[in-house]
């Protein structure tokens, strides 16, 4: 039964993405397409945290670090390599290695959960401060100036593979983003149904019991943390193609935001955080349009109320309601 339900959910996700990819570009004008691409990129980032925190039990305050690294790696790669198709593996490799290195230091260093939150936060802050101070001429990698506070506005967008001359149009980039979101969702489903995924979830449930059954808890945590890092890097690459890379990608705001989305969407689920990400970004945007109300006030109050009212987040509460109705 379990296998059938997971397959159905994956199929539904792919179908929804296909419909959106085909229908939306015809309906929305260009500006909303670009915004939708930003929403999708941020949803992939939220998914990476849903996997690492929701299933791996690792509350990481630093997903923005891998998000930024992915973006910057893509920008530097694209500027140095003519065909941006080769920038994609670079954009994924750098955050993956960074996540593996940071993960190794933390999990093999016996760091407790609270301190892990602080370390990931600190690493993100270090990267922000560092990148923010690379405005000088001497900070360049090959043909790509890091640009410090300015970021790298002249990042070439993805181009049709093999044909550096024709960059993808914003509509095509939107379709690529949706494909990445659906692909990551299905990948998460596959991982969680695999033996590796089951052990990761078991470790979240009870780390000692898992190690007493012969599983090296540090290795599995490192594995899921690295996959999360790669996914966050992918989100960074997508972001670099619809906005542009700048130090703000490493800022506290991004790390904090996605924690809010996963929390409200529902920790321990995949679909919840994605919906949470879309809804809350729309809410933030709508709040921005109100003449004299500051969006932070609304978002802050929404979060406080959500925490007090829905301890385990939107989706499980809804799912809980559904299950209660189904139960005999």
């Amino acid at each position, binding site marked *: 039964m379990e296998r059938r339900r997971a397959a159905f959910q994956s199929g539904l996700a792919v179908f929804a993405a296909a419909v959106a990819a085909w229908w939306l570009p015809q309906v929305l004008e260009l500006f909303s397409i670009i915004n939708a691409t930003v929403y999708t990129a941020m949803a992939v980032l939220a998914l990476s945290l849903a996997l690492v925190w929701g299933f791996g039990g690792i509350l990481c305050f630093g997903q923005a670090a891998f998000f930024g690294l992915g973006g910057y790696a893509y920008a530097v790669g694209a500027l140095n390599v003519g065909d941006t198709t080769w920038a994609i593996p670079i954009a994924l490799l750098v955050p993956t290695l960074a996540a593996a290195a940071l993960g190794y230091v933390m999990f093999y260093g016996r760091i407790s959960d609270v301190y892990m939150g602080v370390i990931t936060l600190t690493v993100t802050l270090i990267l922000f401060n560092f990148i923010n101070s690379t405005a000088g001429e001497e900070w360049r990698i090959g043909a790509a100036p890091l640009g410090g506070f300015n970021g790298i506005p002249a990042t070439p967008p993805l181009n049709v593979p093999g044909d550096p001359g024709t960059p993808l149009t914003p509509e095509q980039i939107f379709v690529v983003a949706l494909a990445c979101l659906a692909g990551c969702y299905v990948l998460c489903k596959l991982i969680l149904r695999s*033996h590796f995924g*089951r*052990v990761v*979830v*078991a470790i*979240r*449930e*009870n780390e*000692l*019991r*898992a*190690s*007493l*059954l*012969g*599983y*090296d*808890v540090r290795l599995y945590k490192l594995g899921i943390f690295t996959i999360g890092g790669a996914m966050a890097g992918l989100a960074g690459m997508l972001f670099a193609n619809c906005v542009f890379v700048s130090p703000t990608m490493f800022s506290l705001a991004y790390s904090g935001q996605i924690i809010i989305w996963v929390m409200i969407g529902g920790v321990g689920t995949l679909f919840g955080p994605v919906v949470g990400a879309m809804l809350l970004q729309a809410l933030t945007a709508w709040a921005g349009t109100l003449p004299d109300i500051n969006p932070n006030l609304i978002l802050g109050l929404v979060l406080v109320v959500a925490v007090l009212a829905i301890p385990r987040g939107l989706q499980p509460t809804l799912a809980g309601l559904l299950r209660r109705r189904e139960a005999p």
Partner: protein
Amino acid sequence: MTALLATENLTMRFGGVVAVDGVTLSIGERELRCLIGPNGAGKSTFFRCLTGQYRPTSGRVLWRGRDIVGLEPHAIARLGIGIKTQVPSLFDGLTALEGVALGVRRLHGEREARRRALAALDRLGIADLAGATVGLLAHGQRQLVELATVVAPEPDLIILDEPTAGMSAEETAGTAALIREMSRDHAIVVVEHDMQFIRAIAETVTVLHQGRVLVEDTAPVVLSDPRVHDVYLGRPPEARQAVPA
């Protein structure tokens, strides 16, 4: 014949306190050994030194002749040792079957793991709990599920830390029967301080007192040894002579 598991004057010191003081014992293949002693005798500390949760201050722990001090708990478990901790340690969010199958899955394929897990649950008479979420089960049922989790991968040695804690007399008797039946194909070390339970299992018993081995003999001898009673009642054992068997 090298012992399955042996310790050579194993010592564990916390600052000034010596919890385990030079304990030497050895356990053969398929032997059922009980380790008893009053509270604070160092039983749990000794147990944690075996499982790798503590790194002993000095001395050696030999698994089939190989020193395993310093190995991570998961490495020790992979040698073929099933470990049940004093506080029940289970996957509350998973179903009983999923939790039990997980241990076996490390050694066998998906389908085989499920089959063996169901078999283990059945052997413990709790096959009906297979689909139940462990977190919602009663205490006694959780102990049985944990036993199944430990037994399912068919380890060569099973170490149990107070398996009957919090059990009713009737459940304790049931567990004793189970352990006797399991000892046919596994070596078992049981750490307990429940006298009735030890009498029911009636195998070799080692008595620990203040971190040292006080007596090591068959159950009937040990249970009638007045020093053991003194130790449990808090009188210093040295006051008496060893009563000849």
